[in-house]
């Protein structure tokens, strides 16, 4: 019996396509895993089903009848409930208040007592024991997740979508949650499990669909017939092998960036760093692959000095890294953030100010207190010419530049002065092909000039193309590095999914 059928779903955000004709079929009584890399379109597809996004094209049928959900409320009316990766709970309110808020209308409760009774009945059925008076933002994440699941069920959902439910849980909690999911499905509901983890698929799912780049590449295959290898290959695809250009062997300088047993606690919705060892040599590009949200952002923050560590050492060229971000910058550390406009550039300020600002650090400022506009403009003009920033002028606010040109500006700023270590986090994400090539050429040139380049990217093709050595980050850990020539793509895919 088919619960949901999505066919040929297309969806774009602005000019960026997220779904290019995706399909999905869900049966009653099953746990259906939906697998794919970040950006493959899993969450987007399920958000279409749950009424958070409306599809640009394609059809949707629930229980065989055509449907179209303009709002989450309409989808909920049809019995579809989604538990988001980032919970939609009101933190300062209590457990019971959150449940009343989300379900009172649909469940028809008139009083608090009715809501409490319904909550306790379901809690007993599922084996949850949540204190109805507890403030939600003071509860453990696993309890918050239980609350979310209860909310969705109490609102009458028969089709449950769980977006990476195990991502925030410990091993034990994850197993308990997945066991619960199976119980719910056996009771006649239908469950979609959006996940990155093979364990979730092979151990707890009946069927599996895999998405890649907005398309469904495995459409509802029995999970029993799947192997880790076949799934990871479907997820990351097969790239033409052997096209890795032999890099001219240049002299490598060991220990330019060395990280030993680096640990840091997790922040809210974050990942803890767990005893990370890393050794990036001067003159190489070290590629760090991995699905986003596995500790990359935390690692970068630790390296540039804006995250509190719980242990471990960071050494630049054999000596302890200076404690402050300014000190590290002066010691030759440069950083290209994943979020250009957030962590990198000042969108509202003119290009000249953006270029000049880092040079006011230390003794490099041309005068002690005054900044001459002419000096800033001169720097800006030189950067525009050197880095071929199109459509730019020294007095132009940076937010008006296109993504590629803003990134070129970012490089121009970061590459200025004495650079010894470069951290590039998803440096080509969202850029067009010409900008990608320009950025990649700059990274190569930096390595050839002796800089230790740490390239962090979710794009495995990019990692394989640029890197000398490759490691994988997952769950706040890093796998041992291997020379790129010896790397097996399928094994990298497995490490991305599994490494614990």
């Amino acid at each position, binding site marked *: 019996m088919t619960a949901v059928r999505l066919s040929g779903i297309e969806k774009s*955000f602005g000019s960026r396509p997220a779904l290019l004709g995706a399909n999905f079929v869900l049966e009653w009584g099953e746990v259906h895993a939906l697998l794919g890399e970040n950006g493959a379109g899993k969450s987007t597809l399920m958000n279409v089903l749950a009424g*958070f996004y409306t599809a640009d094209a394609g059809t949707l049928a629930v229980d065989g009848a055509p449907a179209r959900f303009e709002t*989450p409320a309409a989808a909920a009316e049809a019995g579809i409930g989604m538990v988001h990766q980032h919970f*939609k709970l009101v*933190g300062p*309110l209590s457990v019971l208040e959150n449940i009343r808020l*989300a379900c009172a209308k649909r469940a028809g409760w008139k009083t608090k007592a009715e809501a409490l009774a319904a909550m306790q009945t379901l809690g007993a059925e599922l084996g949850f024991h949540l204190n109805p008076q507890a403030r939600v933002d003071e509860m453990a994440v696993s309890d918050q997740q239980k609350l979310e699941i209860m909310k969705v069920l109490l609102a009458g959902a028969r089709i449950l979508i769980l977006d990476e439910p195990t991502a925030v849980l410990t091993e034990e909690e994850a197993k308990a949650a997945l066991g619960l999911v199976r119980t719910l499905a056996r009771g006649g509901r239908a469950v979609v499990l959006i996940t990155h983890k093979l364990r979730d698929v092979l151990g707890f799912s009946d069927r599996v669909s895999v998405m890649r780049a907005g398309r469904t590449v495995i459409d509802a295959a029995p999970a029993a017939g799947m192997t880790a290898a076949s799934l990871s290959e479907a997820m990351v695809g097969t790239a033409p092998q052997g096209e890795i250009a032999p890099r001219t062997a240049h002299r490598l300088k060991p220990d330019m960036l060395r990280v030993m047993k680096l640990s840091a606690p997790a922040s809210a919705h974050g990942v803890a760093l767990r005893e990370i060892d890393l050794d990036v040599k001067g003159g190489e590009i070290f590629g760090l692959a991995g699905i986003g949200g596995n500790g990359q952002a935390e690692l970068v923050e630790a390296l540039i000095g804006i995250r509190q560590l719980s242990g471990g050492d960071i050494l630049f060229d054999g000596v302890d890294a200076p404690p402050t971000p300014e000190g590290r910058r002066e010691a030759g550390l440069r950083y290209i953030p994943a979020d250009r406009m957030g962590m990198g550039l000042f969108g509202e300020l003119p290009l000249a100010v953006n270029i000049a600002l880092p040079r006011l650090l230390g003794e490099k400022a041309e005068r002690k207190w005054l900044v001459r506009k002419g000096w800033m403009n001169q720097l800006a003009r030189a950067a525009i010419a050197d880095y071929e920033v199109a459509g730019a002028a020294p007095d132009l606010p940076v937010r008006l530049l296109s993504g590629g040109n803003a990134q070129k500006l970012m490089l121009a700023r970061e590459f200025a002065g004495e650079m010894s270590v470069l951290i590039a986090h998803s440096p080509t994400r969202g850029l067009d092909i010409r900008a990608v090539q320009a950025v990649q050429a700059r990274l190569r040139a930096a390595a050839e000039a002796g800089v230790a380049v740490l390239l962090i990217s979710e794009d495995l093709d990019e990692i394989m193309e640029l890197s000398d050595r490759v490691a994988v980050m997952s769950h706040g850990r890093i796998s041992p590095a291997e020379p790129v020539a010896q790397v097996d793509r399928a094994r990298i895919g497995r490490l991305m999914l599994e490494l614990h």
Partner: protein
Amino acid sequence: MIATLLAAWAATIPAFAAPFLLATVGLIINERAGVMNLGAEGIMAIAAVVSVLISLDGGGVGVALLGGVAAGLVLTAVFAVLAVLLRVDQVLAGLVTFALGIGISGYVGDGYDNQTIPGLSALPTSLFGWMPKTLAGVLDQDVLTYVAFGIAVLVWYIIEHTDLGLRLRAVGEDAPAADAAGVNVALYRLGAVLAGGVLCAVAGAHLSLVGSHLWVDGMVAGRGWIAVAMVTLARWNALRAIAAALLFGAIQALVPQLLSSGLNVPVYFIEMSPYLATLAYLLLAGMFANGADAQPVDLGRPYLREERR
């Protein structure tokens, strides 16, 4: 002698406290829904002057009150359109509302300064004749003052104990989550702003109908701003607002007592006392971080549903 002075002082406290209470409770409704309205002072001024104008024109107290509230509501609607519908910066929208209210009230009240109106007087003394004298003095207030205290309790009950209040709080604490739970964020904020504006307007009408029985330009004299600070003092709780309002009412009630007592204190210093009290409170609050945890998380943050952030 002292006892008489104290009794006279206590008897004036409720009427001084009521405008503070009404405005503070109104602002609590706003802020629990996540909207900061700095225009309270202006809304109070408009309501105060319109009430007086209607009274001078021969309107009864009820009509004057309704007229004042209607005028305050129109000004609040300007703020609501700016802050909730157009999502303009709330601080800016509030300051504009304040300036508009002060400006317009000065303009329409020009030439009607210091003309006394009958206003609203206290309940007949005979009702309280059987009580001890001091208590009778405290309880013998006008109807609007009683309404103010009643409204505070009612608003507290609605916010803390009803589904309506639950949704209101959800909107103020986490607008995206409230939206996901099916609460119409803009509608609730709009309702909260208008309801809050009504209470601020009643506060303004109370000042002229009960307090002064006349209009003087600038007579609101910063009470709207003190109410903004009192919301923090009351930790966004309408019941605590009663205590806060009584405290500030008591300080304000000291002013005429001190002035008439003949004590040799500079008059400007006495008139400054409510603001000094506010300053003292803010200093204490800053030192002990009082109330920071009770502040609605999404206060002052406009909400626009977006497909992808």
